[in-house]
């Protein structure tokens, strides 16, 4: 099959079959969970049973709104910003493995590529904040950038420890390493969150919550003080882009977290070479993604927001030293055993 045909098929499958249905599912899930946690009545009753009409109503509302560009805005940059954010997020799906052979491209660099493309989102957020020509947007953009820079470090350092333990940067390689690591010479294989990387998983999850600007780390779009931060001026389809980008990012990071720490498409008791994994692998991975997504949603609707200085203190004084300690311990065990 020609390269270009294969490329079109891969992009179509990833965006159409994996990302979009999962995004819609998680948006609906968030509505339902928030309704049950905070007694919001819309998602209970809209459309009759299960509140099925609520996401449709939200979607229609977003689409029929006018796509405004403020007078003071820098039009070209303002229009481009949502695509930059979305591009960085969608690009991470290239290296997420859904099974031994179900991967768009098993890059040798894997994790490194992931960190590089996910840093593009920061650029889009800064572009949105500056180009809106609005002081709330600018402050929101600055806060977002400060937060993304601060939390990228513990995330990278947590991932470094995984790469040391697995001995590879390729995501499929990391899954296979988890499927073959022996616990004290016994024939038991367990995911990294149980053997070795429990602390790393906690650091990674916290940093991911901050990277996604979700509560308790939503200072950049804190409604009570900044209206909506860098999203203030956006409406209609461009706001929807940011909105979808946020949920696509949630799925991407949940999938990465599941792959690095929870064993990805592999479940204990199966062999990684088994062809069966190509069939049940995607379901296993999506199950783990939904589990992590539920965790993120749960945090959002039950926790208060951190103050800006508390947020920076947590990153620089706690998470970074802890992740360095995690690297030292992991490297020690890697050398000794």
């Amino acid at each position, binding site marked *: 099959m020609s390269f270009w045909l294969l490329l079109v098929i891969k992009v179509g499958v990833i965006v159409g079959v994996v990302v979009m249905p999962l995004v819609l599912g998680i948006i609906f899930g968030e509505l339902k969970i928030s309704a049950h946690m905070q007694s919001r009545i819309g998602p209970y009753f809209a459309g009759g049973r299960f509140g099925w009409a609520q996401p449709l109503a939200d979607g229609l509302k977003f689409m029929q709104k006018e796509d405004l560009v403020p007078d*003071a*805005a*820098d039009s070209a*940059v303002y229009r481009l910003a949502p695509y930059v954010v979305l591009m960085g997020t969608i690009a991470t799906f290239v290296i997420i493995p859904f099974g031994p052979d179900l991967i768009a491209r098993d*890059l*040798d*660099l894997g994790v*490194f*590529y992931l*960190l*590089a*493309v996910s*840093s*593009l989102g*920061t*650029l889009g957020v*800064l*572009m949105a*904040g*500056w*180009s809106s*020509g609005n002081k709330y947007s*600018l402050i929101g*953009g*600055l806060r977002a*950038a*400060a937060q*993304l*820079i601060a939390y*990228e470090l513990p995330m990278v350092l947590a991932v470094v420890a995984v790469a040391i333990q697995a001995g590879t*940067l390729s995501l499929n390689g990391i899954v296979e390493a988890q499927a073959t690591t022996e616990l004290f010479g016994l024939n038991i294989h367990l995911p990294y969150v149980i053997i070795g990387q429990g602390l790393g998983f906690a650091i990674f999850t916290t940093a991911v919550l901050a990277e996604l600007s979700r509560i308790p780390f939503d200072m950049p779009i804190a409604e009570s003080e900044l209206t909506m931060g860098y999203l203030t001026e956006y409406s209609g389809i461009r706001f929807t882009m940011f909105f979808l980008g946020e949920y696509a990012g949630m799925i991407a990071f949940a999938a990465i977290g599941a792959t690095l720490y929870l064993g990805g498409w592999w479940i204990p008791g199966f062999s990684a070479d088994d062809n069966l994994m190509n069939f049940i692998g995607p379901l296993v991975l999506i199950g783990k993604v939904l589990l992590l997504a539920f965790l993120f949603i749960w945090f959002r609707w039950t926790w208060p927001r951190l103050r800006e200085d508390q947020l920076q203190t947590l990153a620089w004084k706690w998470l970074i030293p802890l992740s360095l300690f995690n690297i030292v311990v992991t490297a020690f065990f890697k050398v000794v055993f």
Partner: protein
Amino acid sequence: MILTDWFTMPENFVYSAIGVTMLATAYRVVTTRNVVHAVLHLVAALAASAALFLLLGAEFVAWTVVLVYIGAVIVLFLFGIMITRAPLGVETELSHPRRIRIPAAIVSFALFLVIGSTMVGAFKDDVIEPAPQGTMEFGITRTADVGQSIFQRFVIPFEVVSVLLLAALIGAIVLARKDPTEEESEATGTMR
């Protein structure tokens, strides 16, 4: 190489497209009337250079350019501009006086000559051999090989550079930090 050969290789067209993009955006970096636009054009120029590295099979270098330059340096540029003035629209202060154009052109051309002649002199007709087929993806430098060469053959330069960076980091903190004076620390009751 004759011209018909040139047209049969698709890489050449990709290379030309990337090169033209890079030149155009690099030109806009110095001619645009808005600082933020200059930075955003620089992003495009850097992305094009990363694409050139990808074309050469130097995957690791390409993504390092994206991670370090676009993801960190440019973000810090933008952060610095926005925290100070955040100019929207055309800036009149950002002038391009005519009298510096000729010296600037001479310096750029001289730099181009030095780098170009060094490259041509050093490599001449050498062809960089891609990795043997079947070992890894064809033509891609393996990350493990990059790691091996950094931490075995070039370990001493690597350590020297890391010490230099650490010193620069400490220097930056020392320069930027303002220690409270005696009166201030007494007034606020904080320890020095």
